[in-house]
């Protein structure tokens, strides 16, 4: 039975084709090379704020690039000055951040979130469901609602499924900003085999609170301050909680 199950499972889930594998490999090595260049430039520029400013402009200009693997757009991280202050370079968010393409039998809030993050990530602060009313709640930054509404209309225009009712709430932190902080936290304490630091056991963006949610082994003022300092965040951008170690499951 074991052999048959293995055979059937192998048939069930197709893997990426050779072309896709090669494209992803190129994408990874390209991003890594770009990151090394950025690190080098930031290192050289650290002595002079004038040059550091130029780095930030260059990085912002290169913020949206074509993804090799998917041929679709991907959104890079925010500009580098805070990262330079932190000593953490912000890499692209993902090597294959896929733009939303509506499909499937139900309205996909997750794909809408990805679409909004990819198109108006600086003014949208999160997408989540209201468990009581069933409404979709979209967090927007002050003044950003027209852009978010327009982006949502674009998304809905290509969706065969009608949108659920939507409620907009005003928030302070953009998804792009939270993604950047999330990436910094993961990069600062990324090694699952290694301990150390302030004892972070979980990190993730919490759309409903519009913060980066950080679970600490010991939720002490000292550890909270260490996290904020390391990822260059303000207290209003991060929520802390006591969190026991989380199994990968």
């Amino acid at each position, binding site marked *: *039975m*074991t052999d*048959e*199950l*293995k055979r*059937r*499972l*192998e*048939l*069930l*889930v*197709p*893997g*990426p*084709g*050779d072309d*896709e*594998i090669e494209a*992803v*490999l190129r*994408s*990874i*090595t390209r*991003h*890594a090379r770009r*990151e090394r260049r950025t690190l080098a430039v930031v290192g050289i520029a650290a002595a002079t704020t004038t040059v550091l400013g130029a780095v930030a402009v260059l990085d912002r200009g290169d913020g949206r690039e074509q993804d090799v*693997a998917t041929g679709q757009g991907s959104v890079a991280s925010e500009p580098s000055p805070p990262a330079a202050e932190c000593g953490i370079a912000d*890499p692209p968010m*993902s*090597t*294959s*951040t*896929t733009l939303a393409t509506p499909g*499937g*039998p*139900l309205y*996909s*809030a*997750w*794909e809408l979130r990805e679409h909004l993050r990819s198109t108006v990530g600086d003014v949208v602060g999160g997408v*989540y*469901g209201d*468990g009581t009313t*069933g409404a*979709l709640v979209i967090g927007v930054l002050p003044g950003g609602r027209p852009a978010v509404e327009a982006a949502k209309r674009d998304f809905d225009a290509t969706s065969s499924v009608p949108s*659920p009712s939507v409620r907009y709430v005003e928030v302070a932190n953009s998804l792009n900003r939270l993604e950047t902080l999330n990436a910094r936290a*993961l990069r600062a304490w*990324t090694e*699952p*085999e290694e301990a150390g630091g302030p004892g972070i056991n*979980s*990190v*993730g*963006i*919490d*759309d409903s609170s519009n913060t980066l949610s950080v679970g600490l082994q010991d939720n002490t003022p000292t550890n909270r301050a260490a996290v904020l300092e390391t990822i260059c965040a303000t207290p209003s951008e991060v929520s802390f909680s006591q969190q026991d170690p*989380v*199994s*990968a*499951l």
Partner: protein
Amino acid sequence: MASDFDRLFRSEYSRLVRALTLACGDAELAADAAQDAFLQAHRHWRRVSGYLDPAAWLRRVAVNRLANRRRGVRRLQGFVARTPHDVGVAAPADVAGSLDLWAAVAGLPRQQRFAVALHYLLDLPVSEVAHTLGVAPATVRSHLHSARKVLAGVLEDDDSPLPRRTAR
């Protein structure tokens, strides 16, 4: 350096994506998690390449990344529904029986799905599955036993051979 990394990528990437896809039911999330893990490996290659088993490190990072992403996805579960076709499973016209198996796998508790994916698709021994998931080997054996009982029913109901599917 690049050639060693390339070799590891070519030997492990596809298998890892497939296993993660089976575990999480979402090919895009699986690919993102696998790519994140390889990006980390490339970034720290000097150190990672010195590990006894760099592939084991990769798997653990990828599983952790997937778990992090899934925690975000779960908040939107009420609005998201994916079908086997959406996640890249063989088309129903080709392998009708595979849909039953997919549904059975999707119905397994998450811990069992991860155990099945790593054990059967990555050919990892129980001890390595346990290390990857951060649980005891006995726990993995229990998950596999429970999963096999469920999946055996599907295999018995549909014993027609499946056509081999070409890579997408």
